[in-house]
């Protein structure tokens, strides 16, 4: 007896997006698939890509992170080299949280200088994250766009700042990460707004906001699944690669609290928390993952199959 499998066939295809690399580096291309993640059906020309965050500013690292990245985390250039080298990150997410008034208070020009240094220290593809303070970011993104000597992605363009960020990105040939708070309609709206500005669609990634395991992960899981299914079903504004930043996993008490011995060794538990968050994102359809712990890069790459 032969069994016929009911395999859904989708009319749409996720747009291919490339994060460019510097001279001698390897660009990262994601997207291009016309089927659901992790399955052998359809075409998946590119595997999901796992990258790492390069932090700036004052850091209060949980013990498991301090042990792994502590010696480098205070030095963005050393950290970037380590991530893209020994730790196997395919791209870097340079977070300029250090420019937040409460996060280290680097000036905008200092932030731009860090960008310049990191970009010349490694040819890896880079996404540059803002600091989260609206006013600072309004100055930071244009400065960074100008300072970056080669094409990068700017994270984040949201409803309020998208003209500014997209404008800066357009002027210097960068891409943008379109952010929305766990909401499929807003994710779509962001892409329509960017299209209205004439922003090239193949330079846009969707960041749906990633809740950490136990702290909103299920909302992200479902929004990512819905965005992906909508994109594959033909909604072009949602047929884009999805980026999940796993940083929220480290906000969970379970990931960092050493006092609960019944929860197991916190040195193992923290990385597991990040890994599990990332595995759920991959299962839902994420194309790019940003990790904080080096072991997550290797572990998640093990499930980032085509």
């Amino acid at each position, binding site marked *: *007896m*032969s*069994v*016929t*499998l*009911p*395999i*859904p066939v989708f009319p749409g295809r996720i747009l291919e997006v490339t994060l460019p690399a510097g001279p001698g580096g390897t660009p990262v291309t994601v997207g291009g698939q016309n089927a659901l993640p*992790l*399955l*052998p059906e359809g075409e998946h020309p590119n595997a999901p890509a796992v990258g790492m965050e390069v932090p700036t500013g004052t850091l209060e690292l949980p013990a498991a992170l301090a042990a792994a990245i502590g010696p480098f985390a205070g030095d963005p250039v050393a950290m970037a080299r380590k991530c893209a080298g020994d730790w196997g990150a395919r791209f870097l997410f340079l977070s300029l949280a250090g420019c937040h008034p409460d996060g280290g208070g680097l000036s905008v020009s200092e932030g731009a200088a860090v960008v310049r240094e990191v970009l010349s220290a490694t040819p890896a593809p880079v996404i540059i994250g803002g600091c989260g303070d609206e006013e600072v970011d309004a100055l930071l993104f244009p400065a960074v766009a100008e300072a970056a000597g080669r094409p990068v992605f700017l994270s984040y363009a949201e409803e309020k700042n998208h003209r500014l960020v997209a404008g800066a990105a357009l002027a210097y040939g960068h891409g943008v990460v379109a952010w929305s*708070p766990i909401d499929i309609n807003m994710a779509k709206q962001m892409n329509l707004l960017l299209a209205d500005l004439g922003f090239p669609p193949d330079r846009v990634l969707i960041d749906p906001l990633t809740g950490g*395991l*136990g*702290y*909103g*992960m*299920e909302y992200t*899981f*479902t929004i990512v*699944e*819905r965005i992906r*299914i909508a994109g594959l079903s033909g909604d072009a504004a949602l047929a884009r690669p999805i980026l999940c930043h796993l940083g929220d996993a480290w906000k969970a*008490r*379970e990931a960092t609290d050493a006092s609960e011995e*019944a*929860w*197991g*060794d*916190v040195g*193992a*538990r923290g990385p*597991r*928390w990040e*890994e*599990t968050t990332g*595995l*759920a994102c*991959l*299962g*839902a359809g994420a194309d790019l993952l940003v990790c904080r712990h080096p072991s997550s890069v290797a*572990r998640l790459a*093990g*499930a980032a*199959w085509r």
Partner: protein
Amino acid sequence: MALTAIDIYKLLPKTNCKECGQPTCLAFAMQIAAGKASIELCPPASEEAKEKLSAAAAPPLPKVTIGTGEREVVLGDETVLFRHEKTFYHPTAIAVSIRDDGSDEEFASRLAAIRRLSFERVGQRIAVDLVALRCASGEAGRYARAAAAAFEATGLPLVLFAPAGPLAAAVEAVAPSRPLLVPTPEDLLPAAKLAAERKLPLWVRAGGIEGLSVALADARAAGAVSLVADPSPETPRDAVSLATDLRRLAILGRVRDLAYPSAFDLGGGFPDPFLAAALLVAKYGSLLVLDSADPADLLPLLTLRQNLFTDPQRPIQVEAGVYAIGTPSESSPVLITTNFSLTYFTVRGDSEAAKVPAYLLIADVDGMSVLTAWAAGKFTGESISKMLAECGIGEKVSHRTLILPGMVARLSGRIEELSGWRVLVGPQESSALPSYLRRLPPAAFLPVHG
């Protein structure tokens, strides 16, 4: 595929006799399609129609139960492929394994370790559901004693991995606890007969979907009814793909002969069992067996399961109202938060850690976190002032000072204006509550004078 109202209408007598209570056969067909009526209500319906319609009404993925009573584990009985389409009902069951060939001490300490794999999160118990007993000794008597001891020590239902001989002996010892039988593939037939006789669930393994379709048919022919299907993947990647195939065959294909909950043994030499387990919790694994009893592995897996198996239409929430932390008095602090379980239990835990008796007001915001509720317009100066006036806290304390979550500091002015209460802005994260509460001067909560 589910039948449409038109498909159903075609099967009805089309006489509009109204015996079903509906004005027309078409109206009745629409009721059935919506799941609001059953064909039994139409006496003149043909046998063929009755048969087809009751088959279509059965859940696409039947239910299998293991164990009895409170610890009963239900597998399958799902209706959708994605949680946003409705919800998932029966969380992936997780079994942790133990072998029967260790010393008594090793055996007891492993059982104790499995028993400890039980945690409380947001007011719910999340725990390992079953014990999988592997027959490594090959001795029937020893295996049966181990089964009885494992059940006795944990109270958890058993998954019995053994060849036919030891399996039969263990069934003698623990059948009333309704274990799941997992014979070696060669012993499928005798085990299926045993399962049929004792009305026990049976794990059927074979290579891939084609292999399973043969093995499942053999098990049914031997009389076994309650089956779980293991397509025996060799890698995590195969496991996800095969689990998806099985779930789609049941739900999209309505292929009855393959519509069984899936089961995976991720122990022994299975490559990267943790990775496979996490992906299978997200993607259609009904039952997983793991060799790891490390809480650092199990807590994240159980949390993932708790996340994905909550109803997407209804966040886990607690009842709104006035909660006491410790034994508060009329001069104890009053704090406010929302009725999202995650928020409530986090804040409650942190307040208790402060060891300062207090009242905690839980606002009804349809189960949203503080910031989400604020962004949705449900946690506002108006709603908080209304709660202060109506919840009775004014009679419990003699002061009029409210501690507000730091994230919504911007609400303080409006609350003070509308309620007459004074507002203190607390820390942003409730984890800072212990030091915050201990530092507050008692004068903050002195009685108000007319």
